[in-house]
């Protein structure tokens, strides 16, 4: 029997077998539901981001109006003076946003665990408590979301088991194996052809499930290479399972034996191994309480603020040499209290950046251990690769946090330079403040 005939036979077999047909239908329904969940999250995030940007623009417009009318700030806050760099930069209202990727439709990944927007000021850090995930029910999050990557990585193998456990097993149970070897010159190639037919069938489903949302969402063209990569990973994952199941089928002693071994394998690869490795990593590299950050925000902060201004200046001047030539640096008598505060604030920002880099480096060490386990933990390896393509993984969030820290540093740098040059902020300069992070 050639491959086309085998494919026809397999399809006929599925159509006539109500169990298998129901399994496929159920799989398709759940896949569509998973895609819907991913797409809904993507749309929700975009809608939230739009609201945030609109609000931010309104606040900036209010500030522009103060400049136009010659006001110092909002009426109810008379202590505000937007002609000073401090208040002007505060009202520039900088938002750093982690724009969602439309491929989130295919994999929600870890996205629900992270915050994705933050107003960044001179006081901000990458681990501030306002950078938290959307409000959600923790029990629901612990159960996990039903996204398409879950469907493909965890449920697709189960569908394959339903479709293939009887291959060769049925013939063994009915005692047709000898008859089979008479009809088919090579038993291995007969099993391979049947698995290949199932593989072709599953690939068609995969192509449709990936292509249709991309076409409907209108991002097929703009994200084609990522979608292609996503398809390749999912296709290789399909091959990986087909190969393992074919081996079991070949060496199996009947349908029941094959079903037991296949489900056992699924259990080991999807629940036991990832769970064991999770436990191992938790023991060897336990997640921290961010004590470094807490200590930096308390002890280190106190120490910096207890230092003499000259020592603080020295540290800050080393990082920003342009400050040495600033108006206030050359004329001590001009150094006001806000300017002094600015120097301490900048020193704190520089210190926090160092601490946060260390925290991030420690987290990367932990991730390197996770990556080293991929060869014995293939399902999670595929999961993290797919999350990375969909930009819903830890690394994407880490890059976002880095952007926040860089933005805070940039704001501080601009602020201290302007404060120490006794800059009076007008509308044009305020516009520069507003656009300060535009390349972020």
């Amino acid at each position, binding site marked *: 029997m050639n491959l086309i005939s085998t494919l026809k036979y397999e399809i006929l077999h599925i159509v006539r077998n109500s169990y298998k047909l129901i399994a496929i239908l159920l799989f398709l329904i759940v896949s569509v539901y998973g895609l819907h969940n991913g797409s809904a999250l993507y749309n929700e995030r975009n809608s939230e981001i739009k609201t945030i940007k609109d609000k931010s623009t309104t606040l900036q417009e209010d500030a522009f109006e103060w400049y136009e009318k010659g006001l110092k700030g909002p009426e109810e806050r008379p202590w505000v003076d937007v002609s000073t760099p401090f208040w002007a930069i505060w009202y520039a209202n900088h938002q750093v946003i982690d724009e969602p990727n439309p491929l989130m439709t295919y994999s929600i990944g870890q996205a629900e665990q992270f915050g994705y927007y933050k107003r960044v000021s001179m006081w901000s850090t990458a681990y501030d408590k306002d950078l938290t995930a959307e409000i959600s*029910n923790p*029990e629901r999050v612990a159960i996990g979301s039903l996204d398409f990557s879950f469907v493909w990585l965890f449920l697709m193998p*189960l569908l394959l088991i339903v479709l293939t456990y009887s291959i060769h097993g049925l013939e063994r149970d009915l005692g047709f194996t000898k008859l089979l070897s008479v009809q088919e010159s090579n038993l291995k190639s007969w099993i391979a052809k049947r698995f290949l037919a199932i593989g072709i069938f599953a690939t068609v489903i995969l192509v449709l499930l990936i292509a249709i949302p991309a076409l409907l969402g209108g991002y097929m063209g703009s994200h084609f290479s990522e979608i292609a990569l996503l398809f390749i990973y999912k296709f290789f994952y399909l091959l990986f399972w087909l190969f393992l199941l074919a081996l079991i089928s070949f060496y199996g002693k009947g349908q029941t034996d094959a079903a037991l071994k296949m489900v056992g394998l699924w259990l080991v690869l999807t629940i036991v191994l990832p769970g064991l490795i999770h436990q191992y990593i938790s023991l060897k590299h336990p997640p921290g309480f961010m004590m470094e950050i807490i200590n930096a925000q308390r002890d280190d902060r106190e120490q910096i603020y207890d230092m003499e201004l000259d020592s603080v200046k020295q540290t800050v001047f080393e990082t920003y040499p342009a400050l040495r030539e600033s108006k206030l640096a050359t004329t001590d008598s001009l150094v006001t209290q806000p300017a002094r505060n600015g120097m301490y604030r900048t020193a704190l920002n520089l210190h926090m950046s160092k601490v946060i880099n260390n925290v991030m480096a420690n987290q990367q060490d932990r991730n390197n251990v996770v990556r080293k386990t991929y060869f014995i933990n293939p399902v999670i390896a595929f999961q993290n690769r797919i999350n990375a393509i969909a930009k819903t993984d830890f690394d994407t969030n880490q890059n976002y946090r880095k952007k926040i820290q860089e933005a805070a540093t940039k704001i501080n740098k601009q602020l201290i330079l302007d404060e120490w040059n006794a800059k009076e902020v007008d509308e044009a300069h305020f516009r520069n403040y507003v656009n300060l992070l535009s390349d972020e």
Partner: protein
Amino acid sequence: MYNIIKNEWQALIHNKRLIGPLGGISLLLVVIAYFGVQDAKSNQNKKQQAKEEIRQQWESIGDYNPHGAAHYGTYTFKPTTALTALDNGINNTVGTVLQLEGHRQNEIIHSPDSQSLMLSRFGTLKPAVVLQFIIPLLLIFLAFASVSSEKEQGRLKLLLMQGVSSRKLLFSKTISYWIIGVIILLITLGIQLLLFSSDTQGDLLNRLLLLFVFYAVFYWIVCAITVYLSAALKNNTAALTSMLALWVLWVIFLPKIAGAFSEETHPLPSRQAFSAAMQEDRSKGIDGHNPLSEQEEKLKDSVLQVYNVEIVDDLPINFDGLVMQADEDFGAKVWDKHFGALETTILQQKKAYQWSGLINPFASLQSLSMGLAGTDNWHHTHFQQEAETYRRVFIKTLNDHHAFGGSKTGDWGWTANQEFYNSISDFDYETPAINQALAVYKTDMAFMGLWFIGSFFLLLFANPKNTHS
């Protein structure tokens, strides 16, 4: 009945295909129970160290302005209960660090799952994962052929002709497999008890006992349905595939679908909408750092009247401390309203999810397991509420000292001494006794009971003679 059970056990001992996985899973359980306990103990130690470090910082704060100290605040760390080693529940997804400070009720942050790449989709391999996912599957594998193979080999008729009633046959088969689940369960819970023997208190024993009961009930349900299907369906394969399909539905599909459904029927606000609503309400009250607010003026008038003076400078107390406390009191009302509404919605979601227990006893078991282990949202919320209660007392103590400790209005340079700060006790949290949490789990317990009775009747009225023998 005894003979049938004995016979089943003898057959099982000689079945090399099953004895291997059974031994492997038992060994796995022992190993992960041990590592689970080690993990929980190391976590407890780390939290204790962090707590001591924070306290040490507080006790060396020195001469400090009380309001400055309120901003400095303190931190608390989510405690690890002894049974975290058994069921990690929501611990990987919720934060572990909570900052307690003036002016705001913070949320708990830095969840373990948010600190690395994805490690698993079903959580750390704690004994609960094995007891919930793998043991039922093992029981299915053991029991799916219990009656169908008797039919296939023609022994069923022989047994019935010898006078064994079908009822007795089905119950005996069910009991023989159920006992295996119960033994594994006892070993696992025994290890918890043994390794945490130093912490053994009445409440831990109560929790373990209830865990034993509900897991045992679930195993009974699984065994009974498997034996029933083995009797009702025409062959081994049909019985196995049906039970596997049911397992996948119960364990994989339905919990996620029910979770998503409960979230859709009782939606939570977005963080932005939540913050905006809270800010809106907050703006209607006093703002400790805005001296020009209308509310502050009203408070000032009333205080001046009480002390019978014309201006705040003449007050024998520090009016700023009163303003800060008024700000806190108003804030507390706002937080109670908004966080309260959130908790209500989450509770509604839980209730909606619990109803899935009607078609999925696994959902009830999972819910009860984390509830009894103290790793569910109810315990998490309880911890947050206790921490907030502490925060309010903590900040009030600081504000009162600011107001009545001897300083005058506007004297922000005034400091309280270390002795005063040391006199403020640290936050100590104790996990509530299980009887306080049980009310949340009435629905789950009721459904488990219903399933138990249902499975009992299923066996009672099943008749293998009428099936495809």
